């Protein structure tokens, strides 16, 4: 049976950064990365950015590591395989090809999967998701001949795909189930700012709309909505959320909810098993909450800290994460935890009329996060306010004043 000192399941940024970090202190301990894809590390972020997508830069720019990186660092790359069972007492992982691998330390950096659209006809050619490089290739191909696209879902994928489709010269209509774009992660005002940008770019938006059936032969030709209306199209982009397929762990004793439960050291409830990245439902010591955060910066930093812990140095994960997307003249930035909840106090900063609108999210006395529309310049100072656990209970008025310099609330250093 193959056996490794460090076994990492997941070849994305979390898994690879963990491997890279382990190698900084342990050059010889045997290390393998298992990935369900066959490519070396590539940038999932870049997959939906115009220069790559529209072919303005070489396709190979997507790769962040070449095969030689794995060889040079003595990292075995077990590509095109999925983990199917875990026996924690024996420390054995079973893979999709039937092979069993023994490990001393295990990292589950599984990422998340794109939610599958469950309407009749959704399996027709021309219905696309965008998670993997192969799916990206498929979309790039479709765009060459398609004239009319329908986007299902309002979120990162919907936003970025709308931008790309219009840049590629297609007609585009976005169908969302909610009342406004990205409800409830964005509030109505922020959502409407995005919608205004979409409309200016020529994207039609249909709110509170759901598809009943995808029409066509084996290739998509349109959709029939629940209200009976038929919309013709020759391609569909589906961005309706993500989930973690963790069923294979149900007999392992691993604690998991929406994601794999981790403490502040990114350790799971099973000894010698850690988790990092989009799949981790981790204890955030800054926010004092358990949360699951899917973005590049978080995945990379969690991979690094998990790697440090696995190599033998206990280190708490302490990081205010963030993500920015921009297109069609608008920038959307999320900092920290932006999930709505009854315990949240929201303070508005600026307004849609000013074309600069932020929402500061407070729980108790401290900031936990913010959504910023065209106010990315405050991302850094807001991160610091969260990081330093600044008590803002006496400063709500200042927080609500868009001209007030938030840096004044930071501890004097």
């Amino acid at each position, binding site marked *: 049976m193959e056996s490794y000192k460090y076994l990492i399941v997941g070849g994305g940024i979390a898994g690879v950064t963990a491997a890279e970090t382990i190698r900084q202190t342990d050059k010889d301990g045997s290390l393998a990365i298992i990935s369900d894809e066959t490519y070396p590390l590539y940038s999932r972020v870049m997959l939906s950015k115009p220069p790559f997508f529209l072919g303005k830069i070489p396709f190979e720019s997507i790769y962040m590591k070449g095969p030689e990186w794995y060889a040079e660092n003595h990292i075995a790359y077990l590509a095109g395989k999925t983990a199917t069972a875990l026996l924690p007492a024996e420390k054995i992982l079973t893979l999709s090809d039937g092979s069993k691998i023994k490990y001393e330390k295990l990292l589950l950096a599984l990422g998340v999967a794109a939610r599958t659209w469950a309407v009749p006809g959704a399996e027709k050619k021309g219905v696309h998701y965008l998670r993997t490089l192969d799916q990206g290739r498929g979309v790039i191909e479709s765009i060459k001949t398609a004239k009319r696209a329908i986007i299902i879902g309002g979120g990162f994928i919907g936003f970025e795909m709308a931008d790309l489709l219009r840049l590629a010269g297609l007609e585009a209509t976005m169908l969302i189930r909610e009342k406004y774009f990205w409800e409830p992660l964005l509030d109505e005002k922020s959502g409407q700012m995005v919608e205004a940008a979409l409309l200016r770019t020529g994207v039609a938006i249909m709110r509170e709309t759901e598809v009943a059936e995808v029409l066509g032969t084996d290739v998509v030709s349109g959709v029939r909505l629940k209200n009976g209306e038929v919309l013709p199209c020759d391609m569909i982009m589906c961005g309706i959320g993500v989930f973690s397929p963790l069923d294979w762990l149900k007999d392992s004793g691993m604690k998991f909810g929406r994601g794999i439960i981790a403490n502040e050291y990114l350790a799971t409830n099973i000894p010698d098993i850690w988790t990092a990245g989009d799949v981790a439902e981790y204890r955030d010591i800054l926010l004092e909450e358990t949360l699951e955060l899917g973005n590049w910066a978080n995945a990379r930093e969690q991979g690094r800290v998990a790697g440090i812990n696995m190599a033998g140095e206990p280190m708490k994960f302490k990081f205010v994460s*963030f993500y920015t*997307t921009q297109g069609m003249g608008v920038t959307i930035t999320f900092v920290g935890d932006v999930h709505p909840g009854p315990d949240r106090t929201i303070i508005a900063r600026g307004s849609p009329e000013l074309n600069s609108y932020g929402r500061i999210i407070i729980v108790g006395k401290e900031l936990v996060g913010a959504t910023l529309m065209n106010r990315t310049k405050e991302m850094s100072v807001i991160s610091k306010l969260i990081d330093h656990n600044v008590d803002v209970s006496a400063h709500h008025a200042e927080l609500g004043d868009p001209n007030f310099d938030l840096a004044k609330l930071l501890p004097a250093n």
Partner: protein
Amino acid sequence: MANTKEYSRNRADSKISKIVIDRDLCIGAASCIAVSGATYELDGENKVIVIGANEADDDTLLLSAQSCPTKAIFLYDKEGKQVFP
């Protein structure tokens, strides 16, 4: 390239003489800063700017450019030839 900022580099032992940041590509992931905090910093718009073009050696500079998830860092040699990406 539309929204770019160029920085000259004149480090004695270096083959790289220009660093260019594409501000449209930059998403502020800050992995370059993690590689070389002496070279880069985030500005008020959460985009990367170069604060010390001569601080890092070529290997480190290349690593920092390679770490960027959107390949927003471009490196050029003395003849103006693109070294990375």
